[in-house]
């Protein structure tokens, strides 16, 4: 084995509006041929910056120190990327090192065919005839698993699915057979089932092409699945570096330990749910449900007279008082649509939906408005759910003022302070503007606002998907606490089975707008009956390299079955 890239004492600073910011501080790392090095760490810890330095892709505002020594594929030459000029950099990009970006849909130029883009990389390095380049583009598309590559090579990016786009991005990285591929969160934008396929592809790349991979991610499951070695970054430094199995089995750094502890596991919630079920009164099941959907249909109107799009199709749901229903499903399966319908934000177009005794089919805003004080809503993105021009206290006071529990924000302040404390924010934070809080803090303020009127029903639409794992763990914990304390019923929407498992009494699985499975966490996660649920479960990588190896086997088996 030989070293493909050797990063020595790398330091990167940026000039920003707020002055200089140091993003990477004295980082040393190296990657061997055919090895997968995973860099993990929370958002902003310098993972992307480190990766981009390898390709010399930092913006002009960056200043770099240290050395990044990159070998070519044959192992015959070395360059210090940092000291290279523009045209020299161009020479190594693509041939010595290539990059796979996080968001496949933005990494492809929408106005050119994928073939054109692949060929462009080929032709940028040496004399390749058009026909040859095309042949190689088709070949590489085939090798990353795009069906019918001769035909698809002339398609535009938007004609591919998200997973296919990521395959194409990987194909582009592969086509010049670089010694190193830097993959920056290559699966974060994808559904778990698709993520599993991409991870498989990357594994094949390493095995078949012998390419070294720097894999950047914050998902410990992905690390466990693919990585040979792991570097943990924290605040611009590498705090720990170890082979994957070793790291998971025996984390050394405090931060690594905290990180691993914060990762939710499927199966952890079963006990808790059982506990809560046991604590319920006997006649609980007979109480009128808070939400009841029968054959619920929601259709988005089509534009220009075209047929509408049916996002939810014949869904039956039930949420009883004090119960948390977890709603999972892949992207676009209709989760948000259901949540919004319950909150009266989206019109119900068919079936029946009873919310707190109101039939939502054909209801008028005026009739429904008084009921709104009994419903809370937590949005996915804490940042955008606050009016940027109001202070946190003003935002939290809004429901109180609207429903005339207070005259104005000032009058509501004592109650607001209580609420902030309930979500464990110091009262003084009330005077801050939303952008002056961190993501986790904002999400907690958002919770405070949602429970201000002590609602009977709380709808939470992916309330933690914009947050880091560790922050997510905190917010989920808080949610559980508040739920215990206030006893509201809840619809908890997430695409992450493990998260839902943690909180939900029952879990509903949505697939293409239909409810495919519903039951307690133990039922759904322990013994899934629907093939989609099964695949979903198996696709979910667990943050444990040993267990993950088994699950991989299981998934392969499932796929084969489906294929037969």
């Amino acid at each position: 084995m030989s070293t493909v890239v050797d990063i020595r004492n790398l330091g990167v600073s940026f000039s920003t509006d707020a002055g200089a910011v140091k993003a990477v501080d004295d980082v040393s790392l190296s990657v061997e041929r055919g090895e997968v090095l995973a860099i993990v760490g929370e958002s902003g810890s310098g993972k992307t910056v480190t990766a981009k330095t390898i390709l010399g892709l930092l913006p002009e505002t960056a200043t770099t120190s240290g050395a990044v020594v990159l070998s070519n594929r044959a192992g015959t030459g070395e360059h210090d990327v940092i000291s290279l000029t523009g045209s020299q950099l161009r020479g190594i990009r693509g041939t010595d090192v290539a990059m796979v970006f996080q968001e496949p849909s933005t990494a492809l130029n929408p106005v050119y065919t994928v073939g054109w883009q692949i060929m462009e990389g080929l032709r940028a390095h040496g004399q390749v005839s058009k026909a040859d380049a095309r042949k190689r583009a088709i070949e590489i598309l085939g090798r990353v698993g795009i069906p019918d590559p001769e035909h698809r090579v002339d398609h535009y990016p938007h004609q591919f699915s998200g997973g296919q786009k990521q395959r194409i991005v990987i194909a582009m990285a592969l086509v010049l057979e670089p010694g190193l591929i830097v993959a920056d969160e290559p699966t974060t934008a994808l559904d778990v089932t698709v993520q599993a396929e991409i991870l498989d592809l990357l594994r094949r790349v390493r095995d078949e092409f012998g390419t070294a991979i720097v894999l950047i991610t914050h998902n410990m499951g992905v690390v466990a699945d693919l990585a040979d070695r792991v570097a943990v970054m924290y605040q611009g430094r590498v705090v720990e570096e170890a082979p994957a199995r070793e790291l998971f089995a025996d984390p050394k750094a405090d931060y690594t330990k905290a990180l691993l502890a914060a990762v939710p596991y499927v199966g952890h919630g079963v006990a808790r749910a059982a506990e809560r079920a046991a604590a319920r009164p006997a006649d609980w099941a007979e109480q009128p449900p808070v939400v009841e959907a029968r054959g619920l249909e929601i259709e988005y109107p089509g534009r220009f007279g075209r047929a509408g799009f049916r996002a939810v199709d014949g869904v039956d749901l039930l949420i009883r008082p004090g119960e948390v229903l977890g709603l999972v499903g892949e992207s676009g399966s209709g989760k948000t649509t259901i949540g919004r319908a319950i909150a009266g934000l989206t019109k119900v177009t068919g079936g029946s939906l009873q919310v707190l005794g109101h039939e939502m089919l054909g209801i008028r805003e005026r009739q429904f408005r008084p009921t709104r004080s009994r419903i809370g809503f937590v949005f996915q993105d804490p940042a955008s759910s606050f009016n940027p021009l109001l202070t946190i206290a003003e935002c939290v006071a809004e429901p109180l003022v609207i429903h005339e529990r207070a005259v104005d924000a000032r009058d509501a302040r004592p109650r607001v302070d209580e609420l902030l404390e309930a979500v464990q924010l110091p009262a003084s934070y009330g005077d801050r503007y939303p952008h002056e809080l961190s993501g986790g803090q904002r999400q907690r303020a958002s919770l405070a606002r949602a429970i201000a009127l002590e609602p009977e029903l709380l709808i939470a639409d992916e309330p933690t998907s914009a947050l880091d794992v560790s922050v997510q763990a905190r917010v989920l914990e808080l949610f559980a606490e508040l739920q215990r304390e206030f006893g509201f019923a809840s619809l908890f929407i997430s695409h992450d089975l493990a998260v839902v498992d943690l909180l939900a009494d029952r879990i509903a699985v949505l697939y293409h707008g239909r409810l495919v499975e519903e039951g307690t966490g133990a039922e759904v996660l322990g013994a899934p009956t629907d093939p989609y649920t099964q695949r979903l479960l198996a696709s979910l990588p667990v943050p444990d390299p040993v267990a993950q190896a088994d699950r991989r086997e299981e998934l392969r088996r499932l796929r084969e079955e489906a294929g037969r």
Partner: protein
Amino acid sequence: MSTVDTAPSSEAPAAARPRPKAAGGGFGRYLLVRFLLIFPTIFILVTVVFFLARTTGDPITAAQGGRLGPEALAELRAAAGYDRPLIVQYLEYLAQLATGDFGRTLTTNRPVIEVLTTYGPATFELVFYSLIVAFAVGVPLGLYAAYHRDKAQDAIARVLAIIWYAVPIFFAGLLLKLVFAVWLKWLPVAGRASVSAELQMQTLPNPTGFYTIDAIRTGDPEIVVDVLSHAVLPAIALGLLTAGIFLRLVRTNVIGTLATDYVDAARSRGVAESRLLRKHAYRPALIPIITVMGLQIALLLAGAVLTETTFEWKGLGFILAEFLESRDFAAVQGIVVLLAVIVALTNFVVDVIAAFIDPRVRY
């Protein structure tokens, strides 16, 4: 007023959501709807102009107010029917329009259609030539400025662009004429062609009114040169104004696309910087640029009024100002209809071009 439904405009901020297909298979239908929208636009403009124009007086007063006494004027107005209720006159006009008849001008008694076909080509040519100038100057300079962003070259290009915009067309026109026509004597002062050339073009069987075409049809290279040399100054005066706007648009959008992931991705494949600019940043940036350029057509037509006046370029803008002055509503309305159609059609065409550039809309 508002219903519970707010969904159509909402887009949940889920980063992972695949981009909704822009228009899917309904593109043809979309174009059709866009096309049909032209009609209400025209209807509204005609209505607005009709009532506005009537509040400003009548053509008879405009023409004879300096000769006839009040009674005689009133008599003439009554004879022409201008004393009837506005709404009757309006409905009458609409009925006439509906049959495709634009009527005759009130002051010069010519079919409005004829006015349009006489003056339309001139405006078309002027706009066409100035667009050439605008594109030839604005787009490359915009690219250049984007490429050298925040350097001296960028600053110079941008200040130039602002100055082009800031100098009133009539002022610029005056200066251009003085320098190029009077001092240097390189170019003619004004007009669309010299007298002899125009006379020769009039002898053509069916003159098109497009002087460039007519000049070529005469087969006399001198006439072609004559016609083209007359177009230079007006095209520059109007073109530079537009070029300033184009430059700014191109620069902003190219800088924007240069910051996108796909440019970074192409860079990571070793694509040269100049190629990134030419191929990757430019073409996607063209989509918003072209859309905005479509909106500029109205601005261009407004600028054409002043350019046409300054350079004796007998086109629609100029003649419209004249007809406004003489309160010839019939002519004004006819021209407005044509302008509205032009603007609407341009925007329509622009959408088609944008669709051609952007495969996401095309399919």
